[in-house]
């Protein structure tokens, strides 16, 4: 009888219909449309011309796009090898039971929930060449010669843009890992202590290996997040100066809405989807392989 009630076809349609309409209409169909546009040369008005894979070939020979793609990969690399180790170290330290543990977790997480526009505006002021506190600080400690225009200097703009991005999500990954460590049975750690294992040893030999599924998720989030980045770059530099800090997100938006190259910009959108997908699979494979090697 339960099965008959729960198998009510009309009710199933009633419950699922709104979600399907919104999901298909605004996510699935648009992806298909992006793919379709990406095969055309189209200025956004009138009809486009079908040009096959020309736009994709164009991407590879467009020095600005290549720079943007490389920059996004640099950010992905920096996220995995700078941001995640900091997060992991914080998570390991906090999870072993320090004073004010809960408050510190709460504080470290704060930048994650603040709007990226607010973070961007604040860092813009931190970097301000004349009144920004970064230059003030450098001058105060006698390193005035290092004071710089940061966001306006093509050599430093990329690093200056990426630092806030990496900083903002340290707390996010820390929390993921912290929650992961907390879910490991305490027996394991007690046994390690009885064996006289130091904290560092325990972390390297027991905690981190047991944390692998969480680390896998963290790496995927860090990598795909880096490939998708838009907000902070848009606010801080808009991709400039002279495309020094360009990423795919900012270049796509300016190609479409300033350059009116709808087809070409769509090829970038499809590129990001495929890149995220491919790298997520690659990361998972790497994690799996390591596990099997042990």
């Amino acid at each position, binding site marked *: 009888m339960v099965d008959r009630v729960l198998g009510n076809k009309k009710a199933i349609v009633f419950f699922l219909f709104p979600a399907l309409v919104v*999901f298909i209409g605004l996510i699935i169909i648009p992806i298909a449309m992006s793919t379709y546009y990406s095969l055309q040369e189209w200025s956004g008005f009138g009809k486009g011309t079908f040009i096959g894979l020309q736009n994709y070939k164009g991407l590879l020979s467009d020095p600005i796009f290549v720079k943007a793609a490389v920059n996004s990969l640099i950010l992905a690399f920096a996220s995995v090898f700078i941001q995640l180790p900091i997060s992991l170290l914080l998570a390991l330290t906090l999870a072993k039971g320090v004073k004010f543990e809960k408050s510190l977790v709460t504080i470290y997480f704060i930048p994650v*929930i603040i709007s990226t526009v607010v973070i961007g505006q604040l860092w813009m002021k931190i970097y301000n060449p004349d009144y920004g506190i970064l230059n003030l600080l450098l001058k105060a400690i006698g390193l005035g010669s290092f004071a710089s225009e940061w966001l306006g200097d093509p050599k430093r703009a990329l690093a200056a843009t990426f630092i806030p991005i990496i900083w903002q999500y340290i707390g996010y990954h820390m929390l993921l890992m912290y929650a992961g460590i907390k879910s490991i049975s305490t027996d394991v750690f007690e046994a390690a202590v009885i064996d006289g294992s130091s904290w560092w040893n325990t972390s390297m030999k027991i905690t981190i290996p047991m944390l692998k599924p969480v680390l896998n998720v963290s790496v995927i989030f860090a990598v795909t997040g880096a490939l998708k980045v838009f907000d902070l770059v848009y606010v801080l530099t808009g991709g400039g100066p002279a495309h020094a800090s360009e990423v795919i997100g900012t270049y796509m938006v300016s190609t479409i809405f300033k350059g009116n190259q709808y087809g070409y910009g769509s090829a970038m959108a499809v590129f990001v989807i495929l890149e995220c997908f491919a790298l997520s699979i690659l990361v998972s494979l790497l994690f799996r392989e390591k596990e099997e090697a042990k």
Partner: protein
Amino acid sequence: MSDIVQDRSSGFSISKTLMYAVLFIVAVIQLFPLYWMFSFSLKDNSEIFGGNPIGLPSKWLWSNYSSALLQGNVGKYFMNSVIVTAATIILTSIIAVMASYALTRMVFKLRKPLNSFFVLGLTVPLHSALLPIFIMLRNLKMVNSYWALIVPYTAFAIPMALLIFSGFMSSIPREMEEAACIDGCSIYKIFFSIILPLMKPAIATVTIFTFLQAWNELMYAVVFISDAKYKTLTVGIQSLAGQYTTEWGPIGAGLMVATIPTLIIYSIMSKKVQDSLVVGAVKG
């Protein structure tokens, strides 16, 4: 983890002191931008650029807030963000709670494939739909409206909301529905009077998650909204910064106004906020 691991050498030790020093410095780094924003939101230029860039304001200039809210339009942007975010939360919750009931509790052939279909949505970047949605909105003459943001935000919030609701729903014992069936309840009655009331904690989690997404979103807001009448805080703050390029006080005030609701929610229920953001990662 227990204290045993670390407290073998109780009392003072150099490494322990060093560890606390580092933890404290990290806490200061995380909090400093917030403190600094608060302090310069109450100063005038001569103080920020003059002798007191970092300290508390010597005179608390609340007038920065009135210039941001009134001349800077931040009051209007704030209301727009409230409208867009609230509508997104309500729509997302209703649509997702209904769908996840069918997807977790009901019996039909396509249940599993449909579940995976929605999970796919979690990985789709916003970029991929930006231009097609813009063209749809242009054709429907809906660019520069609240709906231009509400509907796409809802669509992109649904996969995560489904994940959260499904987690809660699958833990409800089957006996509740069986008992209701014996009493002759219809499927709709079961859903509305038995399942929905049990979903309150899940709705809170979905609300927080969706709030953060919608309140902070920039890319769609920049592209779909150019009319000041409909600008949300993220785009509005960008215009404010353009309007007050040399005056930092009102910008700081605008940033504070955009951040205060988030901070209030976080200070009341920080655990719930943290959970709502990691729940997807842990389960997905």
